């Protein structure tokens, strides 16, 4: 493989990994706090839809981004209320929300744009970091990316720092491992978990926005295509650490990039197999390829004070 192609491959991998990275980090925080957020997929789709429609309606991708973050809030709030206050089964609510959002966004899209429309939507611009963008061969392909990628990476680093060095990080860790400890220390467990879910919503919205107005500048029905579940698999594979999740999501992104890369290398693999690859990889990952997983102890269990 020539260096050119390698550069393109790395660049594509990064680009395709971004939604997973963002959603994965959000899900990580939510799960560390104890809420298994299956509705990541739905929240991403909400973000993708709202960003697209917002950008199209206002003509400004930035406003679209803002609108999408606002739009995801009620969805995240719904998940948070159901999971914490009403102590509903978190898996069921997640899937229910995903179905609801899929239907709602499809319906709304049809209403606004009519079926099969591929309206061009104003998209987010790209950006290169100063020196890196000028590296020969690699500079353009690898580092010239939608600016949301860099913003996202910054947020991810910030998240890692917060989890490790601040008291909120301690509280989140405790809420997922031993919520009683949090309660008996005078901090509200539901409050922490609401925070986790809403953060996951925020990150998913960004992830979705990246898909629609960052990457392909359009919206298609159900465009997230299971990316949310890949993000969840990434968190598991990454053993609930930021670093691990990032690596896992990059791996899934690279697997997705192969879909476009292998044909250019003349390697003839059926397209379907390549599309399948990230899911297969994710299955292997959660199937124990990475060793026995140790989830936060109270994950998925709504807290009840006794």
């Amino acid at each position: 493989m020539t260096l050119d192609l390698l550069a393109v491959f790395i660049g594509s991998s990064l680009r395709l990994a971004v939604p997973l990275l963002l959603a994965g980090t959000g899900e990580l925080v939510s799960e560390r706090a104890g809420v298994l957020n299956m509705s990541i997929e739905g929240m991403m789709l909400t973000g993708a839809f709202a960003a697209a429609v917002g950008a199209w309606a206002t003509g400004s991708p930035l406003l679209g981004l803002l609108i999408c973050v606002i739009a995801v809030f009620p969805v995240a709030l719904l998940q948070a209320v159901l999971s914490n206050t009403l102590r509903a089964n978190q898996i069921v609510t997640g899937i229910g929300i995903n179905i609801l959002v899929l239907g709602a966004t499809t319906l709304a899209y049809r209403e606004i744009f009519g079926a099969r429309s591929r309206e061009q939507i104003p998209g987010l611009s790209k950006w290169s970091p100063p020196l890196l963008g000028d590296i020969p061969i690699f500079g353009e392909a690898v580092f010239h990316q939608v600016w949301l990628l860099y913003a996202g990476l910054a947020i991810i680093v910030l998240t890692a720092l917060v989890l490790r060095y601040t008291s909120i990080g301690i509280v989140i860790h405790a809420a997922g491992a031993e919520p009683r400890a949090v309660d008996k220390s005078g901090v509200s467990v539901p409050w922490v978990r609401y925070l986790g879910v809403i953060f996951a919503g925020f990150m998913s919205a960004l992830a979705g926005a990246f898909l629609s107005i960052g990457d392909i500048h359009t919206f298609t029905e159900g465009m997230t295509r299971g990316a949310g579940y890949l993000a969840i698999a990434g968190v598991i594979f990454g053993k609930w650490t930021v670093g691990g999740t990032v690596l896992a999501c990059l791996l899934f992104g690279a697997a997705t990039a192969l879909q476009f890369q292998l044909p250019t290398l003349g390697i003839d693999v059926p397209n379907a197999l390549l599309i399948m690859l990230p899911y297969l990889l994710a299955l292997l990952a959660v199937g124990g390829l990475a060793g026995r997983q140790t989830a936060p102890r109270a994950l998925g269990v709504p807290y009840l004070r006794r």
Partner: protein
Amino acid sequence: MTDTMASVTKSLHGVLRPSVMISVAAVLAAALLGVALIFAMGVSVLDAVAAFVDGTIGTPYAVAASINRSIAFALVGIGFVIGNRANLVNVGGEGQIAMGGIAATAVALYGHVAGLPAGLPFLIPLLAAAIAGLLWASVAGVLKIKAGTNEVISTLLLSFIAVWFLYWCVQSPELLRKPMTSSATLPESLEIPDPTKLPLLTGDYSFPLHIGLPVTVIIAIIAAIVLAKTVFGLQLRAVGFNPIAASRAGISYSRMVLVSLAAAGALGGLAGGFMLLGDQYVLKDGFSSGYGFDGLVAGLLARGSVMGVIAAALLFGFLRSGGINMEMVAGVPTALVMVIQGLIVVTLAGAAFFIGGRRT
């Protein structure tokens, strides 16, 4: 005499218990919202409802088609309920249906079964379908036992993989695609030979209700009896509530997980088999789309009761037919039905808080 009265009243109480009422209420509320949405879209509610009714019970064909759909939902739903007894959440219905359909088509087309006597031409492909679904779900079962993998994620990922596998099968002439005579040849399989098609109950193609119906009813009855009256059902429940204590009592956790997921997969596969051999006859990309989730929601709605699954499956079967017709005639996208289903699931999940306790 009073004994029968007492048992009738007890059954009524059972049917009308709070969890059932909540399910009914959720469905009604969601339906009302659906109507409101139709109105908001500017479509004439009357037209939409007329199209809906026409699509569901307007013609004998419509009724049969609705019931045939319900069969698939019911099987997936029953599979879900069985798995859920052991506290397993099988979300991979769509993938299991896909694998079942693939197996059924492959065997029907290329398994040299058309010439066999006595029902074997369709029974063998059906069996193949069930086995395919069983094996597919067992992957998740094995992962759960060996690596503790959350079956929600694994069945879901397997579902995506299966759907793309289906895509590959109908796209490749080497696999199941019909011989390509031109570049415009559709990506689908050949039509299965007549002997492999499921016999119709009435023999009349304007009312194409196939044998899948009685088979599903029998399966439902067996499932209900097994869950309620057998030791296996009891042990499954024990494992669902407390796998450690069940293990200490000598109940094999591995066996229960494998058997229940395998059963769920087999039923899903069988559903795919019925769909292909019973009314579609040609394997196409995306044939399983949405059936998995519909079956899942039917399972959730039923709150653990097999009879509840039947009711919910019928509801969704008719809902889907009506939805398709509403789209064709009145221009209301089928996505509306999805919105209604999502609302039902979310409402029920939240409502559990108020009626305290039966696990969904």
